[in-house]
């Protein structure tokens, strides 16, 4: 085995779980700038349209996704969400993320593919909603640990009813 392969072999499911649980905690605590620091410079955050859940890539030359953002726009999303004028999230929602069924799906070069199931609770204005689905991650291993290169949230709900919107980071 080369040195690189040995390093990948060191990425365990427990290590990925620790990373994802930490990420979920940052989001639930609205520590969004710290959350952003988990991403690589070439990162993508996406949520496919609910009628195209099986799409391999919600590439914006082909499909009208719910979210398809590279780092620059993701930074803007975080800046926006922290403002009191981001009306849909002011006051902030309470959220709670439950991640289960974490699996390492494969590795290539310095990247690890992982998936997890999620239920994300959002409570605001006396209305509670639950988003249910699956995360697909591409995590890049670097000198300062794991970073997110691709984060895809695939919803199982066919329609955003009663949610009405995804104003939080899903």
């Amino acid at each position: 085995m080369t040195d690189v392969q040995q390093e990948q072999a060191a990425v365990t499911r427990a290590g990925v779980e620790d990373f994802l649980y930490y990420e979920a905690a940052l989001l639930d605590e609205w520590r969004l700038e710290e959350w952003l620091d988990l991403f690589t410079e070439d990162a993508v955050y996406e949520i496919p349209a609910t009628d195209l859940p099986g799409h391999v890539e919600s590439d914006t030359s082909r499909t009208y996704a719910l979210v398809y953002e590279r780092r620059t726009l993701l930074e803007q999303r975080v800046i926006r969400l922290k403002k009191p004028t981001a009306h849909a999230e002011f006051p902030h929602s309470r959220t709670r993320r439950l991640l289960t069924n974490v699996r390492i799906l494969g590795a290539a070069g310095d990247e690890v593919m992982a998936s997890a199931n999620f239920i994300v609770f959002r409570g605001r204005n006396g209305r509670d909603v639950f988003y249910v689905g699956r995360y697909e991650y591409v995590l890049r291993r670097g000198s300062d640990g794991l970073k997110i290169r691709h984060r895809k949230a695939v919803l199982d709900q066919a329609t955003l009813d009663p949610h009405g919107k995804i104003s939080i980071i899903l």
Partner: protein
Amino acid sequence: MAIQSPLIIDDRERGLFRVHRSAFTSEEILALEREQIFSKAWLYVGHESELPKPNDFVTRGVGGRPVIFNRDRDGRIRVLLNTCRHRGAEVCRLSSGNSKVFACFYHGWAYDNTGRLVSVPDGDAYSASFDRGQLGLYQPRVESYRGFVFATFSDEAPALVDYLADARYFLDIIADQSANGMEIVAGTHYYSMNANWKLLMENSVDGYHALTVHQTYFEMMMNLGTTPPGVDGQRGIGRGIDLGNGHAVAMNPELGSPIMSPDILEEKRRWRASLVDRFGEEHATLIANVTRNMDIFPNFAIVDLGFGIQVRTMFPTAPGHTEIVGWQLVPGDVSDAHKTYRLDNSLTFWGPAGMATPDDVEGLEQCQRGFAVKEVEWSDISRGMGRDMPPIVDELQMRVFWREWNARLTGASYQREGAPHDSSYLGAAT
């Protein structure tokens, strides 16, 4: 409970316009809307590009009815009501596909995709009076205009082109954007709001709310070094226009430029030049350098902000709950890079996970919550009333909707507001 009378106050002399808030909360009014509006008006079903091949179909709700929107074996676009003539079950249970036959799984009655009943298991058991020819899938009247397909459940509705009135002109401007036809992009935004459907019809053509509700969107765009279209509305340019029959548009010169690479800018220049070749300078400017938010009565909105075209329908399931469907329409003959530019901008702004639409939904849900205050009976929609050429931050567009709505429910007649549309305003704006 009796229905409130009057439902609107339309005082042209004093320049005051009010809507009674029971319009947003009353079950009786919703029942009347179902009967007088959603069973009689022309309703948008879908775009022809959603059905590229013979036998393609999609299923969806139109006016509260489940329908199959399909292209039959001969290529003709149809709308088949999705209920078996036997005992009622939906004969198609898929959201989309390609099929020559729709068979009901309950007792096995089967229909071809022209709606004809072609198979009844053990059909010999029926009497001679049982007429299969009369038992095809029910088909409402269907007409299309420039690729936009509409249906009505009424025999008395006028021809679609007459119903659309001056809105035709703006559908032309959208359809003319591609020599190869416009296309709906795969991927549909299905969402909802806990608010009355009419609030979203208002919001879809409302220039007044843009800078307050979407402040963070404009700040974001300016952070990225762009000038978002629409900011200039506050300067009192652009125009709200009464298009007749309850349709209205807010049009505004496109002065900003959204997220765009130099390559796309160059491609857009070539695209505009091709429009000048096809239609001349004036029409090309209308197509390529003007934004438009258009409501087509009762529940169809098209918002063309230059960087993308959002097509949207809404339907009430209760006075305080609305199902919304959003699609993205693009010119069929532009490059993949141009489509990506449009989709990047469109889903950054629109859609239930964009950076603008969630704040609209929040605003409309806040209005609905406020309607619980019964002491305040009226909403005010008077801004700019009586002006011949109201800018888009005025509220003519909403008054146009409400007058038609009121006429449908109460039989009242009304006059159109504002100067008739002509295109000369563009010269004044540039």
